[in-house]
């Protein structure tokens, strides 16, 4: 189908965008359009006005510092995927982005847009959670930083008011002596995940497991971070029982069943993917821990 009629503005600055968002009843931000335009064409959404960010200069940059990676609102999935500096500071970004949709969709869809969209089947929401990230939000009352815990309210729902623009997302750097990995199971290449898992393993100076955290995709209504440390705490990394961490994860998650997979199958995948990703995250943690 075709989108219902709407009005359209393509402002040249964030303040201009906020001006239209505040003035127009039922206005919505348009970024990559790779989630919003399907919703419009399926008539699941019919905003009165679209405020297109694509002509706003300065939003398309990736800033990398020792603290982390700041991704501007117009950085496409494809741009983040191939950004070498970002991958060095937070390797989880490229590893997860490689699982977002198909190349043609990654050429247009934005990382920030997928966070603002808050789809429980999206990879980048759970990456924001797992890294302890935040977004910077501009609204008519000024700019503020919103941490991931305060951002996600429900499926496709954030705490942000209608007249606001997320200008960037910030992903903290991978800590020292840590490794990370991401894996997912999808029905077809590039599809949304039936279940996905991102993990971070942190070792102590003697290469014993100090902390293990995981976050899942298509499991639960909003992204959550699960602490799996108890299953393997203090164990020398080469002897760590990652299967035990997977078993613990299965008891912590509350997946739903749907057309694509039953809740039980998703729970099974949580265990399998947790074990699998922890094994490779541990290898990276070892590489990053001086002997």
């Amino acid at each position, binding site marked *: 189908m075709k989108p219902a009629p709407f009005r359209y503005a393509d402002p040249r600055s964030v303040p201009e965008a906020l001006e239209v968002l505040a003035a127009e009843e039922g206005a919505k931000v348009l970024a990559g359009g790779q989630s919003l335009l399907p919703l419009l064409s*399926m008539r699941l959404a019919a905003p009165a006005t679209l405020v297109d960010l694509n002509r706003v200069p300065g939003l398309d940059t990736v800033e990398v510092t020792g603290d982390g990676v700041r991704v501007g609102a117009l950085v496409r999935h494809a741009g983040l995927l191939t950004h070498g500096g970002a991958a060095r500071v937070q390797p989880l970004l490229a590893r997860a982005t490689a699982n977002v949709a198909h190349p043609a969709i990654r050429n247009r869809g934005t990382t920030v847009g997928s966070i603002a969209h808050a789809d429980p089947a999206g990879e980048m929401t759970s990456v924001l959670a797992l890294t302890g990230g935040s977004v910077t939000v501009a609204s008519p009352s000024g700019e503020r930083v919103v941490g991931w815990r305060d951002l996600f309210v429900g499926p496709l729902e954030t705490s942000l008011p209608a007249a606001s623009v997320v200008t960037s997302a910030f992903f903290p750097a991978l800590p020292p002596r840590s490794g990370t990995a991401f894996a997912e199971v999808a029905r077809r290449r590039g599809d949304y995940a039936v279940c996905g898992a991102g993990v971070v393993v942190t070792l102590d100076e003697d290469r014993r497991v100090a902390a293990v955290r995981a976050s899942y995709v298509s499991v639960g209504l909003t992204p959550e971070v699960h602490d799996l440390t108890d299953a393997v705490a203090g164990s020398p990394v080469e002897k760590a029982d990652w299967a035990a961490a997977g078993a613990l994860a299965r008891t912590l998650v509350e997946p739903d069943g749907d057309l694509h997979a039953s809740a039980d199958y998703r729970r099974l995948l949580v265990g399998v993917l947790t074990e699998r990703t922890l094994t490779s995250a541990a290898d990276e943690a070892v590489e990053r821990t001086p002997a």
Partner: protein
Amino acid sequence: MTVSVDTERTVRLTVNGVPREATVPVRRLLSDALRHDLGLTGTHVGCEHGVCGACTVLVDGAPVRSCLVLAVQVEGASVTTVEGLARDDGRGGQVLHPVQEAFRECHALQCGFCTPGFLVTIAAGLEARDAAGEITDEEVYDLVGGNLCRCTGYANIKKAVRHAAATMAISAETAAGPPAISAETAAEGGER
């Protein structure tokens, strides 16, 4: 308010190297603007929500779903559709793009509905990669994985990708390779 909020706009863009213009309601999808306003019916529309890939075109060299872009958003951009893949042969005729040749050679189409989307995606992807290196299975899967075909079972499409990659490697070697489709922006089609 300083920003104009419109229901209709005139869009100027370059399509297959030709400057074009159309006045469209702002809700017009690029796919429909190409087909209905500009008369370029080579771009096919299957699902109209981003899943099938039939409508894929190149915007500034990069493959995108034309059903997930508004026509007003390509103001000033350069669009390549399947009609723009063939080259002038310098004698008043045209030569097919190596990917089109490969599809014909390998029987990579049956009804042809999905074909335009595959052709532009694969053409951009192969032109973005280093032609000299032999194409890997992973690369092939990535090039075809975003497009649906209900007829062929994909085997011959994958064969055509390998065939086209091989011919493009040979023509790159003999230096007289086919001219790149508007390569202003590096296409991401072959990356992963």
